């Protein structure tokens, strides 16, 4: 009886608990942390776009205005 309860407690209950703990840490939490890291990397890449070249900024703004006008006129 004692051996049976040991098997149930150790193998089934605690075993499943340990497995789920690892899944929580290396699966669920890692996924959340990964999303954070990805966002951080994308943000870093975006900061590279801030070159300080005024002409480039003006070009991007002009392209944006043109896209906006095209959207309004042609309803794309």
């Amino acid at each position, binding site marked *: 009886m004692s051996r049976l309860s040991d098997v149930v407690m150790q193998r089934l*209950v605690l075993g499943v608990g*340990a497995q*789920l703990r690892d899944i*929580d840490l290396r699966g*669920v939490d890692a*996924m959340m942390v990964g999303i954070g890291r990805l966002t951080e990397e994308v943000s870093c890449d975006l900061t590279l776009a801030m070159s300080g070249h005024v002409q480039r900024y003006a070009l991007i703004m002009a392209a944006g205005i043109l896209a906006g006008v095209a959207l309004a006129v042609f309803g794309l």
Partner: protein
Amino acid sequence: MTTFPILTVITFLPLLAGAAIFLYGARVARWLALAGSLATLAVSVPLYLHFDKTSTGLQFVESVPWIPSWNVEYTMGIDGISLPFIFLSTVVSVLWVGASWTAVQVRVREFYAALLLAETAMIGLFAATTVFLFYVFWELMIVPMFLLIGVWGGPRRIHAAIKFLLFTLAGSVLMLVGLITLLRTSGTLDFEALAAMRPSAQLQSWLFVAFTAAFAVKVPMFPVHTWLPDAHTEAPTAGSVILAGILLKMGGYGLLRIALPILPDAVRLFRTPMLALSALAIVYGAYVTLAQTDVKRLIAYSSISHMGFVTLGIFTLNRNGVEGAILQMVNHGIVTGALFLCVGMIYERTHTREIVAYGGVAKLAPVYSTFLALFCLAAAGLPGLNSFVGEFLIISGAFDTRPWYGVMAVWGVALGTTYILWLYYRVALGEVKPELRALRLELDLREVATLAPMAALALTIGLYPESVLSFLRVSVEQLLVASAAQVGVAGGM
């Protein structure tokens, strides 16, 4: 409409005490914080004495125009659902001031100011009757919690604080989008007015996703729960008590205050996945709790399981389930808050949270072990103690609605009993660890005075649940009728 703005006074009195701490300096910071929290508790007493349990409307209402161009008013009021949470906030605030008395020795002034700011945010959130004011206090709560974890926390406090901030802010941004959409489509942010309007079913679905994302992070529901174990583990004792005692309840309260009455069609649409996630959180959280080796982490994971009961009860959409969910939130605040206090008290002496470092504490500290046993038994749902009533109502509500979720909840109770009693066995019973013999583990008078009110509350609610349920009854019925969402058998206790 009352002449004395009691809710505003209760909300902002802690903030005034916090400002006074900055004026008078660190020397009297603890005493000022204690005086501020005690005064807030004292001023809140008339709320319970003069609360009309038979009234269906908001009581102690205060309303002044705030931002007329947005049709936003500063409006406060309470019903039977918000009152227990205000009570819990004012009581727990006194206790966490007491619990931090010797534990915090650096930046004492700032620490107590942050605690009092948190108290203002909590009470304000539970007293708010517009989505705008609710959102303001929701956001305000993030600031002191971030500071408490990030400044006074453990070795990995920065990681935990940033994780807490990013998770909660991600949810808050979606809530802001929902708030703006509600304002644009309905022209008001008043809870009662919004409940009467009822947006289109499609809009409700989008709004439900936006608001529930924020609430799910705070509860926390699976799979957005992973900030909680880190935050609990690294936070100082007072921070853990705030998290367990009040902050997690803000998510459940948001579901009751915004999702159920304002978005009832969406609630019915998303009911099955929400029930499934709740049942999953109960069982998954309980299994992961079993495998923990750190006491604080163990209690943190147990909170995920216990809060799963709360969301399960809410989405049963029947009286037993919703009443049980509210009662369970109060119970969890008391019991888990007390367990974190117990952990903090012994950690101050041993400086370890590893369960294997403990053993035989009952022989060295019988008073401490008695309190720990009481709170462990309460957490396990022992009849006669508070959690039993909440869990009983939720499980009966679940069986009335979807029996399989009731079965999973019972499974969660069995696992919960296992992990909490096993924790007690490993910490308090067995052979005394040699390293502990040299330490003075027994509680002093201040610590006994801190734990005693929690024990009294656990016993009072356990033996006489009507002390809380009688306040809830009419408001819960009103909530279910108004949202036209009542499903299953509405039975009483």
